[in-house]
């Protein structure tokens, strides 16, 4: 350890106690982002300690990356500088929960599955069915901006986040919003923290609206010969009065993806084999309600599927439903584990452009013989995973070319795309944050207000913020 980093760790130890500072390189490897490892990790237990840490870092010009369960540190560009990992996992208390009001206030480091268990006791839940559900913290979920299948009915975190407390890059603790379900007092600063990768502040406390747990639910699943037909089914449902809980389209490759070992760990109960057939596109949609409503959904969905040319259809319930839902939720980790160079594009288009966007993307990868698989949400968000069999320079060039063309074709449709996951070594060649954005200048203005010295996750965000 250098003298400089020894000073840093001793000062950090003064703030949080020596047992909450890690400087051992072997242990620190767990905090590495791309090719960079911090010289210390520090685990505060209070906002007051975080304030001290941030003030110290600012004075010493140290770069901080806030971490939770460290499941999504691969998102974004490599940090320009990375001195201290601010580990939030000890800030993990439930601050308050009022089941009667359906409101909740938690510290950022609380694991999502623990929170879900607490809410379940009161037959409530947060619609954050996100990847790495069994490990991720609530803070990491919000800061990374990942989504999940429940957004079809519930929207994303910005739709049920009520308020937040955070520490800015100047070492100031501030808050916005509140704890009631309706509130327009002051600016919605908390929305800015969603998906900002911690570049504006350290999220310390988050207030949410909770939701009554759904009564019985089921999933409808149908297979189609072409992507157009599967997308046609999505359109048919969205034109009806049905309000499904989830709605996704999967490409033919999903059958082999979901039969992988990782997939099996996540979802031990298999889904009927004739449904996830290797050559067909899959439409799935979850729905919930009383027995009459369930019957109505099933009848209507079967009829619509037939009209849309489905080859096969089934309704899942019980363990099969649980498995299918877990696989949908964990599509990204499963895809990441299935190739040495998984590159996942997040493509966003209007819902009616899903088939067109998918066809364009498919052409790009097929013409380069790159294996791929995709999951498209009914709202127009497509996760397009390229799964090369090896990570050579030649393969990289193929993936770079394919992704560039996908980014352009998406832009031509009026949408936008980013590459949240790819091999670290490819990040300086791939357009991780997509094409340049016209509103970038407006984003820089915010960064200057919240973190004028650029100590939070420097370089990782859009445009190298």
């Amino acid at each position, binding site marked *: 350890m250098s003298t400089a980093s020894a000073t840093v760790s001793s000062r950090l130890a003064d703030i949080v106690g020596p047992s909450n500072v890690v400087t051992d390189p072997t242990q620190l490897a767990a905090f590495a982002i791309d090719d960079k490892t911090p010289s210390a990790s520090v685990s505060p237990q209070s906002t007051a300690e975080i304030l001290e840490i941030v003030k110290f870092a600012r004075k010493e010009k140290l770069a901080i990356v806030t971490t939770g369960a460290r499941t999504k540190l691969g998102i974004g560009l490599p940090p320009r500088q990375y001195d201290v990992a601010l580990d939030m996992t000890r800030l993990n208390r439930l601050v308050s929960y009022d089941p009667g009001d359906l409101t909740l206030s938690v510290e950022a480091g609380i694991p999502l599955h623990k929170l879900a268990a607490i809410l379940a006791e009161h037959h409530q839940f947060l619609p954050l069915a996100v990847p790495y559900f069994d490990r991720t913290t609530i803070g990491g979920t919000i800061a990374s901006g990942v989504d999940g299948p429940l957004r079809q009915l519930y929207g994303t975190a910005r739709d049920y986040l009520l308020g937040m407390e955070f520490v800015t890059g100047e070492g100031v603790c501030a808050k916005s919003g509140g*704890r009631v379900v309706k509130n327009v007092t002051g600016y919605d600063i908390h*929305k800015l923290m969603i998906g900002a990768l911690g570049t504006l502040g350290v999220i310390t406390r988050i207030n949410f609206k909770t939701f009554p747990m759904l009564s019985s639910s089921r999933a409808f699943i149908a297979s189609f010969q072409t992507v157009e037909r599967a997308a046609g089914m999505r359109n048919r449902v969205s034109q009806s009065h049905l309000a499904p809980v989830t709605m996704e389209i999967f490409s033919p490759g999903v059958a082999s993806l979901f039969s992988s070992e990782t997939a099996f760990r996540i979802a031990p109960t298999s889904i009927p084999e004739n449904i996830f057939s290797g050559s067909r596109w899959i439409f799935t949609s979850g729905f919930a309600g*009383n027995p009459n409503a369930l019957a109505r959904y099933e009848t209507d969905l079967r009829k619509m599927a037939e009209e849309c040319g489905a080859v096969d259809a089934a309704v899942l319930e019980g363990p099969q439903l649980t498995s299918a839902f877990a696989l949908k939720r964990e599509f990204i980790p499963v895809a990441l584990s299935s190739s040495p160079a998984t590159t996942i594009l997040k493509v966003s288009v*209007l819902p009616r452009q899903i088939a067109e966007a998918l066809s364009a993307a498919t052409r790009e990868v097929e013409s380069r013989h790159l294996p791929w698989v995709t999951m498209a949400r009914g709202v127009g968000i497509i996760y397009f995973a390229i799964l090369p069999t090896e990570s050579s320079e030649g393969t990289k060039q193929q993936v770079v070319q394919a992704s560039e063309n996908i980014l352009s074709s998406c832009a031509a449709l009026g949408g936008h795309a980013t590459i949240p996951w790819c091999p670290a070594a490819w990040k300086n060649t791939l357009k991780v944050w997509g094409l340049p954005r016209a509103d970038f200048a407006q984003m820089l203005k915010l960064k200057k207000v919240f973190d004028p010295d650029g100590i939070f996750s420097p370089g990782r965000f859009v445009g190298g913020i």
Partner: protein
Amino acid sequence: MDSHAINDLKKLLGADAVLHRPEELLLYEYDGSVEVARPNCVVFPRNTKDVVGVVQIANRYQIPIIGRGAGTGLSGGALARQGGILVVFSRMNRILEIDVENQRAVVQPGVVNSDLSVAVAHTGLHFAPDPSSQKASTIGGNVSENSGGPHTLAYGVTTNHVHSLEAVLPTGELVRLGSPALDSPGYDLLGLFVGSEGTLALITEITVKLTRLPETVKTLLAIFDTVDDATETVVDITARGITPAACEMLDGWTIRAVEAYVHAGFPVDCAAVLLLEVDGVREAAEQNAEDVADVCRLHHAREVRVARDARERDLLWKGRKNAFGAVGRLSPTYYVQDGVIPRTKLPQTLRRINEIGDKYGFEIGNIFHAGDGNLHPIILFDAREEKQFQRAVATADEIIGFCVEMGGSITGEHGVGMEKDRLMPLLFTEDDMNLMRRVRDAYNPTGLLNPGKIFPNTKGCGEIHVRPLPVAGVSRA
């Protein structure tokens, strides 16, 4: 105001789009609140280019600029608190695009809220945010204030229904925030600008989400002999995990005022009614309607009526949405509050409001969004008597103070504006507000756009908070 500035504005927009004579400005010194502030001139841009031009002139002469839709706001958001140019969007009122398949519409800011829903009704879609002012208020105003309404209980407030904005920053820069496709990469600037009460930008175009009209709607009127029974019902409905599309409460005093005016069929001898609506697919809505009715009966509802058809349903809603107009007939002036409380605190809060009214000698009516704990106590007073006016403000402040004590908020949907700036410290520390001020200054660096709003005046110049009105206010909640 500099006559050169007026001339420049006339040259840019044409003489018919600039008002500046005192008698022309009178109409524009009010909105739906109890505030008064007169602009130096009023302009009516026709397009985005006009708006950019107006902003440039304002910068050239260093004159404040304030955006305004229909002026139905309840917190003075669209008033020229420090004078200046009021930019009224009534001529930018075109629906530019309706994309039925993707459930989006592109509108100019001056489009009236309900006009959009009427325009798309034949497609089975609607614009979900439904402030009671929806027949007059504009979507630009709704976006600026992040308006709510009865059905936002289930459908969300305005911010949940906006995909993208085109806006002119006070510096004259034209920006586009968000996108019709979801999840724009980068900071959620859209989320910041929606609800920023006209302090960050003038909005020139809005892409909104259109929501499918439900297959089945059941509207129920539950009649109670005590206010406590009605509020306990709301608490219980929420606790049971039933989310009605709307859950509105009117107390006996308000019902009598409404009946005398609207004849909506509310029983005048009861203590409170709940106007409840459930919707969705037929099978779900029918069950929910039964469940809701059962909870009402469990809490001693004297009667639960279900609207038999669209006509009966419209009549019930007419009673709710015209309630403020009805109150306007009873008193020269009234003051509507907008506090929010956690829903479980409804019973004790309503009792407390009653006590506060007694203490100050006011009769206070209550008509509000019970389902999400958003209160609208109405204080009747005569603004011609200065003392009464001050007492009304003191009453309102005490009610808001109690809401905050209960863990609530000072405004649920009306905004802070110039009405509640001095109450901001009840919720926010100096650090919280400083950060928000700096965010404002990042986009509004000279402070020319809508000055004197949201944040308390740190210099404490002893400015009079609200001035009495000579005539009845027409307010909507």
